[in-house]
């Protein structure tokens, strides 16, 4: 299995738009490393395309952006694309989604995935209302999404899943220490966004 990455990034509501925009740096990083990218963006983030790409290309890394629950991961317009019968054979999966770590992650491993990194609880993401048309300039959202992106960028740099998880958490701790220090912006300091901190542990 050669190194390749499949990314799902629907953009049908506010948070998926944020995921879509912030995932671009991962797509760009993969391309810069000559890693094949299968980019299921927008409406392409649907079950038919997903199954087709998975079965034909067998990507080694699968980066899922979207909404989810304990047993379902969804794509564009919240249509299900992965359930507990899905097979993502030998893939390292990172799901930026609510709750799929509760049960779906385990099922995917049982069905042949190599590794699953995801969240057992709801995924919280702070944002700045004035920046919703420019998500990349949203520093508050960045506090959540940069460490999240670090999971995938670490994998793309040939590190294992444990290292990816640890680096992401480490970035969270660093962010938090900065937020409570004198170098934080006023908004960051007031908010602290300590929940950022605890989302990832």
């Amino acid at each position, binding site marked *: 299995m050669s190194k390749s990455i499949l990314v799902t990034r629907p953009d049908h509501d506010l*948070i998926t738009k944020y995921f879509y925009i912030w995932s671009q740096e991962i797509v760009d990083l993969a391309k810069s490393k000559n890693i094949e990218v299968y980019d299921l963006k927008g409406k392409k983030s649907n079950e038919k395309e997903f199954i087709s790409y998975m079965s034909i290309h067998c990507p080694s890394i699968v980066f899922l952006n979207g909404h989810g629950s304990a047993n379902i991961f969804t794509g564009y317009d919240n249509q299900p694309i992965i359930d507990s019968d899905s097979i993502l054979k030998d893939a390292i999966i990172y799901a930026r989604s609510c709750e799929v770590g509760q049960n779906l992650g385990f099922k995917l491993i049982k069905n042949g995935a190599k590794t699953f990194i995801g969240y057992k609880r*709801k*995924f919280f993401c702070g944002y700045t209302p004035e920046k919703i048309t420019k998500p990349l300039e949203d520093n508050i959202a960045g506090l959540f999404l940069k460490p999240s992106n670090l999971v995938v960028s670490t994998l793309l740099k040939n590190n294992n899943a444990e290292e990816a998880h640890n680096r992401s958490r*480490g970035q969270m701790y660093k962010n938090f*220490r900065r937020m409570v220090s004198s170098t934080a912006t006023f*908004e960051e300091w*007031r*908010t602290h966004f300590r*929940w950022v901190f605890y*989302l990832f542990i």
Partner: protein
Amino acid sequence: MNDKKENSIEDIILDPELSEQLKNLVLERVSIMPDTLRMSVGSDELTKNDVLKHVKEGDDIGNQIMEMELGFLRDLASGAVYSYE
């Protein structure tokens, strides 16, 4: 010797009296956050008032917020926040 056993976060959430104390603490701490606070949780976009409402109602989101807040306070008190490298 201090034999006091620290309750797990789950124990606290499930204990009515402790949960109520935690809820009040969280409500106070959230209330001083900026009014411009916005959080996306799943498909929902929450304002500060929405967050307060979830905590008051003690629903899934409210409980998760309380757990996160408690975890933070414990790690702050123990110094664990600053010890991770």
